[in-house]
C-alpha cells in the first residue's frame, strides 16, 4: 500500500548558514536563467530553451538532500538541476553557446545537458524518457550494492506518458533505490492540469504502484531538503523507490519567447508576488537589502563570467558532428 504523507512545513532542519548557501545557489540559478533569457532574445543563443524560474527551490532542495555520488536525470527544463548538482556555470553557458567547452561538448544544447562526472546523467528533450533509465541506473546500484540513489525529475505533464507508468511500476516491483521527483507546476506547455489530468492530487499516481510517496511544498527549500533526505534514506535502505510529489510554480512561459496567450496575466502576476521561492526564503532569512545586494553582486558576477567564458569558447569544427556516433 502506498503511504501518502502530508509534510508539515519543516522547521530548523537546516542551519541558517546552510540556508543562506542554498539561497545563494537559488539566486545564482535565477540570475543564470535570466541571463539566458536575455542572451536568447539578443539572438546569441541557438536552439530551444526552457527556464525554470519559480522552481529553484526544488533543484536546490533536492540536491541538498542527496549524497554527492547520487545521480540525476533531468528534463527539457534542466539548467537549475544541473547547476545545483554542481556543474560549473561556465560549462553550462558554454554548452548553450554550442562551444566545445560546454558540458556536452556542444553536442547537446540546453535540452541535453550532461555532466557525468558530477552525477548529471543527462537532460532529456522527450517528456518522460529519462524515467526508465533512472530505474535502470538504480538497478545497477542495487546489483553492485553501491550506496547510491538515482533521481528522476519530471513534470505533471510527464505523468500522462505510458513510460512514466512502466518505469515507476518496474522500479517499485524491483525495489530499486530511486527517487521520482514530480515538479507539479500546473502546466504542460499551454495546457493546464485541468485539461490534461483527470485528478488533482498527484500522489494518487503513486498508489497505482504501491509506491511510498511524500507531498512537498516546492517553494520551501527546506521542506524539499527534508523530504528528499528522508526519501533518500528510505530508498537507500532497500525499502524501495519514493515518489516526491512537489507542488511548485512556473512563473514564466513554457519556453523562452512564449507569449503565454493561454494564461491569465493577473493570476500570473499574483503568483509572482506570492510564490517566488527566492523572495520567500529572503523573507524567512530576514536578509537585509545590503546582504541581498552583496549576494546578488556575487552571483551576477559568476553569471557574467560564464557568458564571457562561453563567448571566448571554441566552436566545434563542422565535421566533428560525427565524432561520437559510436564508442
Amino acid at each position: 500500500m502506498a503511504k501518502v504523507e502530508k509534510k508539515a512545513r519543516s522547521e530548523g532542519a537546516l542551519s541558517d548558514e546552510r540556508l543562506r548557501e542554498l539561497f545563494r545557489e537559488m539566486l545564482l540559478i535565477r540570475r543564470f536563467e535570466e541571463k539566458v533569457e536575455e542572451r536568447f532574445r539578443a539572438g546569441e543563443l541557438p536552439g530551444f530553451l526552457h527556464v525554470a524560474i519559480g522552481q529553484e527551490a526544488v533543484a536546490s532542495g533536492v540536491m541538498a538532500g542527496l549524497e554527492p555520488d547520487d545521480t540525476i536525470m533531468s528534463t527539457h527544463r534542466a539548467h537549475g538541476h544541473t547547476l545545483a548538482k554542481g556543474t560549473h556555470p561556465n560549462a553550462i553557458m558554454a554548452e548553450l553557446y554550442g562551444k566545445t567547452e560546454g558540458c556536452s561538448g556542444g553536442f547537446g544544447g540546453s535540452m541535453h545537458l550532461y555532466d557525468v562526472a558530477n552525477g548529471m546523467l543527462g537532460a532529456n528533450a522527450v517528456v518522460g524518457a529519462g524515467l526508465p533509465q533512472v530505474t535502470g541506473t538504480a538497478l545497477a546500484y542495487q546489483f553492485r550494492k553501491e550506496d547510491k540513489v538515482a533521481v528522476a525529475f519530471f513534470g505533471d505533464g510527464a505523468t500522462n506518458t505510458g513510460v512514466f507508468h512502466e518505469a515507476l511500476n518496474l522500479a517499485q516491483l524491483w525495489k530499486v533505490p530511486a527517487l521520482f521527483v514530480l515538479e507539479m507546476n500546473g502546466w504542460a506547455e499551454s495546457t493546464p492540469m485541468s485539461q490534461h489530468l483527470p485528478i488533482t492530487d498527484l500522489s494518487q499516481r503513486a498508489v497505482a504502484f504501491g509506491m511510498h510517496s511524500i507531498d512537498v511544498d516546492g517553494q520551501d527549500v527546506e521542506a524539499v531538503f527534508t523530504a528528499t533526505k528522508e526519501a533518500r534514506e528510505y530508498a537507500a535502505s532497500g525499502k524501495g523507490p519514493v515518489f516526491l510529489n512537489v507542488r511548485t510554480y512556473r512563473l514564466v512561459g513554457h519556453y523562452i519567447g512564449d507569449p503565454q496567450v493561454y494564461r491569465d496575466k493577473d493570476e500570473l502576476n499574483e503568483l509572482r508576488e506570492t510564490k517566488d521561492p527566492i523572495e520567500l526564503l529572503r523573507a524567512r532569512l530576514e536578509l537585509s537589502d545590503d546582504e541581498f545586494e552583496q549576494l546578488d553582486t556575487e552571483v551576477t558576477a559568476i553569471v557574467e563570467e560564464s557568458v564571457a567564458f562561453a563567448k571566448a569558447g571554441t566552436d566545434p569544427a563542422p565535421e566533428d558532428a560525427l565524432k561520437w556516433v559510436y564508442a
Partner: protein
Amino acid sequence: MPELTYREAVRDALSRAMREDDDVFIMGEDIAEMGGSMGVTQGMLDEFGAERVRNTPISEMAIVGTGIGAAMQGMRPVVEIMYQDFLTLSMEQLVNQAAKHRTMSGGQLKVPLTIRTQGGAGWSPGAQHAQQFESWFVHVPGLKVVFPSTPEDVRGLLWSAIYDDNPVVFFEHRLLYPLKGEVPDELEPIPFGKARIMREGADVTVIAIGRMVPEALQAAEEAEALGISVEVLDPRTLLPLDEEAIIASVQKTNRCVTAHEAVTRGGFGAELTAVVQHGAFDHLDAPIERVGAKFGPLAFAPAMEQWAVPHAADVLEAVKRTVARA
C-alpha cells in the same frame, strides 16, 4: 490566385473540412489555446470549440490509438504528433493496429485516420527534435505516406488524406511553414500517387521530398549556370509512389539524384534508387546518387548541424557527379 503560407494552407484544409463535415475533428498536444507548437491550428479553437479542437495529455500512443478507435466508428480524426521524433512513441498503434485492422478483419473495418506531424533541422534543435522518419512508414503495408513541399500541395493533399479511408501519415516540414505560394481559391483535392514535375530538365532528374524540394530547385538554378539542365520531381506521396512518372523522367534524363533531409542510409532515397535502377536500367548513364543527412545523431552546435544536414550545394555536387560520369 491568393497566396498562403504552407502553415496557412494546412490550417485552411483542416478548417474547410471541419466546416463541411462534423465527422472531422482534431486532437493533439497544445493545439487549442496555443494553436499548436508550430501555430498551425491558431484560431481554430475559437471557430470550432473545445470539443472538436481537443488538447490532449502527453500520451502519443493513446492519441493515435484513440484516433483509430474514433476512425473505426466512421469519424475522420486528424491527430497531431508535435514532432516526428515522438512518432517513436506511437509506432505500435500505427504499425500493428491502424495499418492492419482492415486486413485482419477481412475487410470489415476501415481506419480513416490522418496523423499530421512535422520536423526538420536548421534551428539547432539537437538530436531529439529534428529527425525525419518517412522511410520507416513506406515499409508498412496498410499505411499511406505523404510529404508535401508547397502550400498548394499541402492543402490539396491534406484534404485527400482526411477523406482517404486509410490511415495516412502526413509529414510537414518545419522550415516550410513560413513559405508562401499561390493556391487556387477553390480547394482542389490532389490525388495520391501523382508526382509533380517542379522544373523540367534534360540532363539529370533530382527526386526530392520535403525541404529538399526548394533546395533542389535552387541547385537546379545553379546547375543551369554551369550548363547542366536539371529536372526536379517531387513524388509528394511516398506511398503510393508514382513510379511511372519517376521512371519516365529518368528514362528521359538518363541520370538520377535522390534528395531528402533524413540520413541517407536506410532512407527513402534507397527505395527510390531501387525503383529507378530497376525501371530505367538500360537508360542510366551514371550511378544514382543519394543526398541526405550524414550518418550521426544531429549535433547541437550550428556549425556541426549545418554540415550534417543536406543543402542545395550537396544536391549540386551530386548532380555534377552524375554528369561527370558521362
